[in-house]
């Protein structure tokens, strides 16, 4: 489970602006539903070496509008297998939601000065990215509290289990008690 307490450390893979969902996972692999299998084809068309060279915990660093295009959750799933966090200047809306929903942390920050291969340490609690290679810290845009609660739960399914469904069950119990 990813929590806001945890520190994340990994090597940066640098991407540019407008990395779309077809670049992350081509359409022909969407019949696959398993994260591990999808990961074998991540960025296949744009960075063929990614899938074999990525190490558990590595970090994706990108420019504007990361994840634009399709609603395919296969895209964040293909990355979650190995990637610990995605940092971009901005994200496309559906990708942003999907990543959070499956418990893959995403952060918005100015990534201009971070280079390919830099070793990064991300403190999610303090909202700081520390570039160990450059010995420099970067601030991140704060996530809305509501979104942070989903990440703290480890994704939307757990969040709904912990909050929504339990509240509903509680409501139902109250109603039943009142009926009695």
């Amino acid at each position, binding site marked *: 489970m990813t929590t806001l307490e945890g520190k994340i450390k990994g090597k940066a893979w640098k991407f540019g602006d407008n990395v779309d969902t077809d670049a992350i996972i081509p359409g022909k692999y969407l*019949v696959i539903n398993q994260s591990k299998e999808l990961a074998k084809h991540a960025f296949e068309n*744009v960075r063929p070496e990614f899938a074999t060279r990525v190490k558990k915990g590595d970090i994706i660093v990108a420019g504007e509008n990361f994840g634009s295009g*399709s609603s395919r*959750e296969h895209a964040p799933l293909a990355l979650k297998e190995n990637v610990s966090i995605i940092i971009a200047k901005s994200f496309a*809306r559906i990708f942003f939601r999907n990543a959070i929903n499956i418990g893959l942390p995403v952060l918005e920050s100015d990534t201009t000065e971070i280079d390919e291969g830099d070793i990064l340490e991300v403190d999610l609690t303090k909202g700081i990215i520390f570039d160990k290679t450059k010995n420099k810290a970067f601030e991140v845009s704060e996530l809305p509290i509501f979104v942070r609660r989903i990440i703290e739960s480890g*994704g939307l399914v757990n969040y*709904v289990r912990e909050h929504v*469904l339990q509240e509903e069950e509680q409501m139902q119990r109250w109603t039943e008690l009142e009926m009695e």
Partner: protein
Amino acid sequence: MGQTISEKIFSKSVSREVYAGEFVEANIDMAMIHDITGPLAVKTLFDLTDKVWDPDKVIVIFDHQVPADSIAAAVNHRELRKFAKKEGILNYDVQEGICHQVMVEKGHVLPGELVIGADSHTCTYGAVGAFATGVGSTDMGVALATGKLWFKVPETIRFEVNGKLGKRIYPKDLILHIIGNVGVNGATYRACEFGGETIESMDIPARMTMCNMAIEMGGKTGIVEPDEETAAFLEQRAVGADVALHSDEDSKRDIRSYDAAKIVPVVARPHQVDDVVPVTEVEGTKVDQVFIGSCTNGRYEDLKVAAEIAQDEKISREVRLIVIPASRTEYKRALKDGVIDILTDAGALVEAPCCGPCMGGSFGILGPGEVGLTTSNRNFKGRQGSPDAYVYLCSPATAAASAIAGTIADPRRF
């Protein structure tokens, strides 16, 4: 302060007045899943609970890989069929057409509703005045389980278009022009409201083309305020359509104005939807494959325009033209009045209704170095097959003219 149509729809859904920027847990009026995103959504649903919240508010449509083009696709279809049957959910099988077309033409979407679909082009339904937005499989699974989903009520950009589109210039040229103008993330997180006399004079299929591409500028939805045109369209398809909903004059909207008379035929060049230039700038570019179809431009009206241009003509021997009607209904209309005949006589390959080459996961794939011209909505690198292919987006008129010429051609000359 007044409310935008989007704020009004969210307010109705949560039974209190809400405005842009607020986080809400909204009640869903209708949910759509298809053969690609459906299996993951159903898995999430069963992780949470053992049945759908309301089978009457869920629709399953097969369109991306139909008829099944692989064993994996056949398995996805089989499992979704079983799921729909067990839950008592309406399931349009492989014959019916593209999900977004089917949802609107069968009257499953009404003005003022909050609709989600596990596909980014769900924003298309804004053409009938619904707030419709694409979500991922986990969001969808949660909605299937609970009937609710969290949203941030979006700010609105109103694209105010006045004037008349010129000869052989279409809604596709207009929406590509707008995207070229604001950029691929120019409307991120925001509702794209289309209005003004140009939009008011459009029929529902044309409005669908406009709303369909709102996501290509990052928009959360595309929406047109419902009117008499909407009421007439829904009259035979649905009951209870209320077309009174509109944005208040004093609501907070970022208004961008456009003059339709100034729009020219355009294409979006590879590999970005906002790389939009006049057709004249790329005229003469050799083309290998032309595709007329998709949820953007596969309707009867689109095929008819193509047929007008292809009448008594032959497509270039250097080009393959693939035509795919957006649905069985649209296919039948085009068959009945000879549109399919004209296109077939001209040399087109007509396929049965489905998404076709649009997402590059099935057939009609482009090879390395090939140039594709398409009426669909995305020209991302590798989207239609090889990452070394080049895809241009255009209107059905430009597509037909170019198929005849063998190179990208200005439809005004046809």
